[in-house]
């Protein structure tokens, strides 16, 4: 794990820790939006939305391009997937443990177990 990877992970989580930014990201993942269209959705000033867009852009979750006077934003699907992947890897670890508990509970003889439990009481 290089430190640049960690910096990126930090930026992702910081960027996603805000509801407005998550909402903006959902919209731009679905398709390219102009910053002014995003501002209308959020009932926010253009400048405020632009700031949120900039945070997402710095985190590498969104990219911007200009078309005439319009600033158009679209989401980076790959980057968003990476954040989810971190928690999904952890989930895989837990799922393994849970299926082993399930197997252990199923293979143990419950009668033997009860006698042990009674002895312990």
């Amino acid at each position: 794990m290089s430190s640049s990877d960690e910096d990126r992970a930090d930026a992702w989580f910081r960027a996603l820790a805000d509801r407005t930014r998550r909402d903006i990201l959902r919209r731009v993942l679905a398709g390219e939006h102009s910053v002014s269209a995003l501002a209308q959705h959020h009932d926010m000033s253009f400048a405020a939305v632009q700031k949120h867009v900039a945070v997402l852009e710095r985190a590498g979750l969104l990219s911007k391009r200009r078309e005439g006077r319009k600033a158009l934003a679209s989401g980076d699907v790959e980057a968003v997937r990476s954040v989810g992947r971190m928690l999904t890897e952890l989930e895989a670890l837990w799922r393994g443990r849970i299926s082993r508990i399930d197997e252990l509970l199923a293979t143990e003889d419950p009668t033997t177990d009860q006698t042990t439990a009674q002895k312990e009481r």
Partner: protein
Amino acid sequence: MPVTDVHHDLDTRTLTITADFAAPVHRVWEVYADPRRLEQVWGPPTHPATFVDHELAPGGRMTYFMTSPEGERYYAYWTVTSVDEPRRFTFDDGFALDETFAPDTSMPVSHNTYDFTPTEAGTRATFVATYESAEGLEKVLAMGVVEGSSLAINQIDDLLAA
């Protein structure tokens, strides 16, 4: 599959997993209260866990190591923060430097809450793990890559067998 719900919270870096087991609460509790049982479930088959200290009591300490197929040992510890037998216990899970089990302070610690509730069919278990920072989560996953990939294979096996 006993897992009934999985929830990822990116804001709080929390993973919540709910599972239903077809056994009464006291038997699920025994899995954690008995180090020999815990060893059977904690590490993946490729990296079995060996518990050295095992004290499931408030302020108690659990220490264990996992052994890789090459014989390399990975040391870790739990600090048990609360116990409400047989319903609930909480603990901090961290990495240790070596066989002395001195905490590796450069590595993140996760806060865990395990809850067991009786149901008609047996036990509903809720496992919650929280990491303080994104770097923490990243580091743990980096260390767990080997474990994660071997588990992924097991999961496929389970799916095929189901």
